[in-house]
């Protein structure tokens, strides 16, 4: 009972404040209407309790109760050197708002738009109106509903058809202590176009005591190629709920790699709908948790059409009292013949108290398909440990080498060399800190 009371109180707080939020903004009527619908849905749904099947292992009470402090440290000097990706276009958001001074967007092919969503909205862009909230439904999802009601900014990327953006776009979201930020990203990639996007969440300062509720909507056209990375390295006190909704058209190739090292409670929801034939979708992930971190990955591969392939590998390393959740849904609709879906989830538990709840969930309605899934949970391999020690490597180092290799399997798939190198270094440091 207490849980419900707490969650309801938090819901009411957001609902009550919404009118004032709207009145402070001068927005187009369509957007205003969208926000009103969203807050109404949020009011009806409320924050999910652990009785909700999709939130069984993730208690959001601390997230719901978190309040914007009076003065989140939005100002002060910030350098972004630490996160630099050489050569990439950089868009920095502090507390969910675009920072032109920290950002630098280089030259882009003619016709390509890369800007903040607030800027795109201020131009009253028709394409934004047509696409915003079209993919990420808030009908039954409380966090996307809340985000739709309250978002202020985020990234807007539009690549018309037949264009290749060679240089990666780096979206860097810095969360200041004490801030609630709800960034909204809209990524529209046209037919035959190609782009690489890095979506990174880190904390600006302190321990990252903030709450980020992000929504990223992706629409990828026919034969489009999109490589996406989501990096979450917020501090030990951060709350992060992120939703990515991907809509793919035929022959599109989409891949996303999600890497999570930071945060106290982190929930990623990644959903891909294969809405045409010949699509290839990859959702991979690495998460490393220590102390009392909770890292929850929920994925959906929705095979709606025939001849599509999906690949999914998630690896987790959990130490201390950390808790991992993996839920991987694969839907193969009635028409989706010749589907080839592969899913694997591997978890390494480094302590007795660490815990993983892994649930592959396959719902197959077509009859001529190939679907495989596997989940392994375990400790380091004794034979491998002995082999390294028998060559003179001490036990401590041997364990480190094997743990690193287990996790690095995912990082090796990162195609952007400077990002991969930075993540390898971060992985090494993270593993040192949790052992």
């Amino acid at each position, binding site marked *: 009972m207490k849980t419900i009371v707490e969650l309801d109180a938090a819901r009411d707080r957001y609902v009550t404040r919404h009118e004032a939020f709207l009145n402070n903004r001068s927005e187009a009527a369509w957007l205003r209407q969208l926000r009103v619908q969203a807050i109404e849905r949020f009011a009806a749904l409320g924050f999910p309790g652990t009785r909700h099947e999709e939130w069984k292992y993730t208690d959001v009470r601390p997230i719901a109760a978190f309040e914007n402090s009076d003065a989140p440290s939005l100002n002060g000097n910030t350098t972004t050197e630490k996160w630099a990706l050489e050569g990439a276009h950089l868009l920095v958001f502090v507390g969910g708002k675009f920072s032109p001074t920290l950002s630098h967007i280089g030259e882009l092919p003619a016709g390509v738009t890369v800007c903040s969503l607030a800027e795109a909205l201020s131009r009253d862009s028709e394409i934004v109106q047509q696409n915003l909230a079209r993919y990420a439904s808030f009908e039954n999802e409380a966090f996307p509903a809340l985000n739709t009601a309250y978002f202020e900014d985020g990234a807007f990327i539009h690549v018309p058809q037949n264009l290749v953006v060679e240089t990666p776009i780096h979206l860097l979201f810095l969360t200041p202590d004490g801030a609630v930020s709800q960034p909204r990203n809209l990524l529209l990639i046209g037919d035959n176009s190609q782009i690489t996007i890095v979506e990174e969440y880190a904390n600006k300062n302190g321990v990252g005591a903030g709450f980020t509720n992000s929504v990223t909507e992706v629409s990828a056209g026919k034969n489009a190629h999109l490589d996406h990375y989501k990096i979450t390295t917020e501090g030990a006190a951060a709350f992060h709920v992120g939703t990515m909704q991907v809509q793919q058209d035929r022959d599109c190739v989409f891949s996303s790699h999600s890497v999570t090292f930071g945060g106290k409670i982190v929930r990623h929801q990644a959903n891909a709908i294969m809405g045409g034939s010949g699509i290839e979708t990859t959702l991979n992930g690495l998460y490393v948790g220590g102390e009392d971190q909770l890292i929850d990955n929920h994925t959906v591969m929705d095979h709606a059409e025939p001849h599509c392939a999906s690949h999914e590998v998630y690896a987790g390393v959990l130490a201390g009292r950390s808790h991992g959740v993996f839920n991987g849904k694969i839907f193969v609709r009635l028409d989706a013949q010749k589907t080839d879906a592969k899913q694997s989830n591997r978890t390494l538990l480094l302590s007795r108290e660490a815990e993983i709840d892994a649930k592959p969930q396959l719902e197959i309605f077509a009859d001529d398909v190939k679907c495989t899934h596997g989940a392994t949970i375990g400790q380091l*391999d004794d*034979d*491998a440990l*002995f*082999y*390294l*020690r*028998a*060559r*003179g*490597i*001490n*036990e401590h*180092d*041997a364990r480190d*080498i*094997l743990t*690193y*290799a*287990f996790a*690095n*399997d995912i990082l*090796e798939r990162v195609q952007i060399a400077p990002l991969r190198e930075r993540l390898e270094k971060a992985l090494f440091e993270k593993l040192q800190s949790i052992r």
Partner: protein
Amino acid sequence: MQEKPVILEIRDLHARIEDKEILRGINLTVRAGETHAIMGLNGSGKSTLAQVLAGREEYKVTQGEVLYKGENLLDMAPDERAQKGVFLAFQYPVEIPGVNTSYFLRAALNSIRKSRGEEEMDATEFLKLVRQKMGLVELDKSFLSRSINEGFSGGEKKRFEIFQMAVLEPALGILDETDSGLDIDALRVVAQGVNALKSDENAFVVVTHYQRLLNYIVPDFVHILMEGRIVQTGDKQLAIDLDATGYKELQEAAR
């Protein structure tokens, strides 16, 4: 002539795995410059002996002692044994995906050097050493960018073991059925590698099923292991006789 120093001394060694006693009183003295072959049927305890010497924790020593250069070997952790110069060429080398062979071997070499108070070897120096040693066992340099034993053929795995031994230069090399499953060409390459490493300072214990290997790695002593004990010791002729008559006769004679 002065006797060479003793490298390994095994006295009345008994060992078991779970409830099964496998070694029942092994006695063996190995001096510098010597090569000892240990032969026996499956289950006679050959591989157990090799594993016990390397420090595999599943095997419990219940009686006896093992001295390595005068020190109690059984008190040492597996990595300490390796640092002091004991090397086991595994019967079944372990595949370790994601751990690069070159990184691994340099980490091994440097932890051995560090334990001896020597300077760590830098990447350039290491590469030079590795190139030179690879030739010994005819390994291609593409091995350096692969993961440990991952996707290696049976013969490649065994050659990789000998290559590691060549880089780490142990004082005591224990080969656990390194010849099993090798064709004659691979066998020659492996034997060549071992022979090139032999010196007056080190010693080898070669555990094998087949006499054939001993045509290429010529032993000074051949020991026949049966039911956890050495029942007969001779020179290389013993292995040849054994190959002709078989273990059965020997078994009967022993009774």
